[in-house]
């Protein structure tokens, strides 16, 4: 065993109550770090999952139609006069050569799923009940890669082949249909067709549950008069926070309009960022408090150990060795605190999970406890331990051995 470790461990053991107190302080600090990070991480993951659960990460669509300003007339004084240009109403259009675009998008690194979609407004009618719906024409296999539907089914199956449709549980309630029932789907100005409910989904989102109707791509093309077309392409990415960069890359590659979830949910991003900042501020204050605790206890320890330091110096212990003894004390305190703090943090998290549940007993949201979190907490605790020990260690190393032996 090295001299510095030997002495540092013994000094810590000798001042047992101080050591226990300081390790408890570090443990509490680390547990707060672990708990808070797991809580905020879980909360954010839950928010993102809820928001993106029924939303593609990137939507690719054709450019909006716009009227071109025409040169109206040239006056006698040669002045050019433009007429007022009004924004034209948008009609449902297909992405040109969408099959090729789907192929191109699938090959972009970081893209996890690509699904062509025909999306338009329609009416769901059953008896006297009529509801405006968002009609999604989808290729079920591809759609499932972008927005998982099968796992959200409350009843029935994920099947949109032939005349089968999937719709949300709230819409089914309003129409009074269940799996196996028939109803009519039609676009504005068209009579539409009769479809059979094959499955009811619940995305935990009222808007989606009330508005979405999933049919096959071919049925949507026919109903919305977009034969052979796809009005949008939905994209899922591997890293959700890389969506904006990928969206820009897609727009540049395809020349189409590409919107990421980060742009369409800017407010959510701001909220998440504010949450992270608040959490980081709390964590910073905790770290500062822990650091001050370690530093003050070690400074007291240096004063208490002045005589011992003087004796060691007289026996041939160098200033650097003395300095390393106290740095090691900080490191040992930090490491032990990190270990107990992580255990305490997990216990706190599990306790919170057990207590804070929905009325049906399910988790409020999953906590994010992973190796990275513990590694970060441990690294912070170790760094705090060592940094806090720098001042006491330097003070110890500067002690004049002759003075220390004589007066203490």
């Amino acid at each position, binding site marked *: 065993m*090295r*001299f510095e470790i030997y002495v540092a461990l013994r*000094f810590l053991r000798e001042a047992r109550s101080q050591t226990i107190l300081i390790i408890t302080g570090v443990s509490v600090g680390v547990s707060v770090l672990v708990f808070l990070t797991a809580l905020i991480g879980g909360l954010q993951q839950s928010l993102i999952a809820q928001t993106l659960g029924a939303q593609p990460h990137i939507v690719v669509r054709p450019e909006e139609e716009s009227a071109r300003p025409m040169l109206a007339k040239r006056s006698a004084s040669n002045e050019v006069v433009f007429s007022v240009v009004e924004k034209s109403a948008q009609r449902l259009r297909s992405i040109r050569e969408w099959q090729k675009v789907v192929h191109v998008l699938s090959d972009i690194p970081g893209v996890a799923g690509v699904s062509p979609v025909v999306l338009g407004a329609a009416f769901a009618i059953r008896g006297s009940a009529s509801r405006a719906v968002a009609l999604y024409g989808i290729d079920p296999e591809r759609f499932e890669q972008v927005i998982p539907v099968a796992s959200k089914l409350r009843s029935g199956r994920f099947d949109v082949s032939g005349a089968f449709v999937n719709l949300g549980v709230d819409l089914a309630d309003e129409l009074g249909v269940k799996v196996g029932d028939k109803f009519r789907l039609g676009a504005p100005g068209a009579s539409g067709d009769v479809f059979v409910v094959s499955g009811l989904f619940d995305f935990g989102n009222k808007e989606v549950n009330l508005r979405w109707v999933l049919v096959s791509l071919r049925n949507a093309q026919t109903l919305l008069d977009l034969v052979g077309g796809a009005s949008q392409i939905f994209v899922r990415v591997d890293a959700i926070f890389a969506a904006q960069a990928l969206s820009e890359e897609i727009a540049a590659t395809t020349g189409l309009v590409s919107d990421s979830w980060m742009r369409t949910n800017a407010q959510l991003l701001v909220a998440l960022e504010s949450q992270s900042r608040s959490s980081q501020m709390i964590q910073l204050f905790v770290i500062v408090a822990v650091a001050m605790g370690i530093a003050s206890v070690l400074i007291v320890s240096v004063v208490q150990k002045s005589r011992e330091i003087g004796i060691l110096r007289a026996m041939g212990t160098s200033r650097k060795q003395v300095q390393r003894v106290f740095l090691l004390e900080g490191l040992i305190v930090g490491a032990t605190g990190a270990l107990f703090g992580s255990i305490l943090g997990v216990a706190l998290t599990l306790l919170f999970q057990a207590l804070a549940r929905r009325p049906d007993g399910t988790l409020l949201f999953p906590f994010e406890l992973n190796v990275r979190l513990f590694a970060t907490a441990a690294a912070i605790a170790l760094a705090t331990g060592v940094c806090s020990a720098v001042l006491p260690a330097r003070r110890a190393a500067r002690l004049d051995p002759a003075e220390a032996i004589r007066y203490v």
Partner: protein
Amino acid sequence: MSDPVIEIAGVTKSYGGEVITSALRGIDLRLDRGEFVALTGPSGSGKSTLLNILGLLDRPSAGTVNVLGQPTAQLDDDALTGLRGRSLGFVFQFHHLLTGFSAVENVMMPMVSVAGRIEANMRASALKLLESVGVAELADRKPNQISGGQQQRVAVARALALSPPLVLADEPTGNLDTKSAAEVIALIRRFNREMGITFLIATHDLSLAASCDRQINLVDGQIEFDRRGKP
């Protein structure tokens, strides 16, 4: 002429800023291998200051200090510490054992400190030293579990841990009863005779000083007399 262990010339030590106090004034001194020397003088005469300078715990304001023929003026703190660890042993009035370590660990400490790590033979060597000072059975006791005399024996064993040629003892019996004091002095005298270790003992005890081979008396930071042989 015998081999000098330590040699100082023209050593002065002054303290203070505007008002300067001179603790030592032009001391010339040489200690040879195997000497058994008493350093006497009234309180404030500069004994402790001289011991600190001889022990390389303090630097003189002027003058030279050579240890085993090596000049120390140009040595940096690390080199000075290394030289101190290898060449000098200390015995203090209040034993100054490390309270958190057992007797045997206290004796091992100079070995561990200089080697930078605990080595296999260190405990055996420390136990042998404790045996030679007659407290081997107390090896695993902490300092507060043994008597003052026993503590000072352990301190003597620790001072000898690295077989230094010179041991500086500051009032080694000052805190002991007469019987224990006599035992400790007999002990260090034995090491002086058997191992040829030089001892410089700062003391107020005139009978102890009289039992030494040489007596140096300091008054007001200067050597009043330096006489060899018993008076």
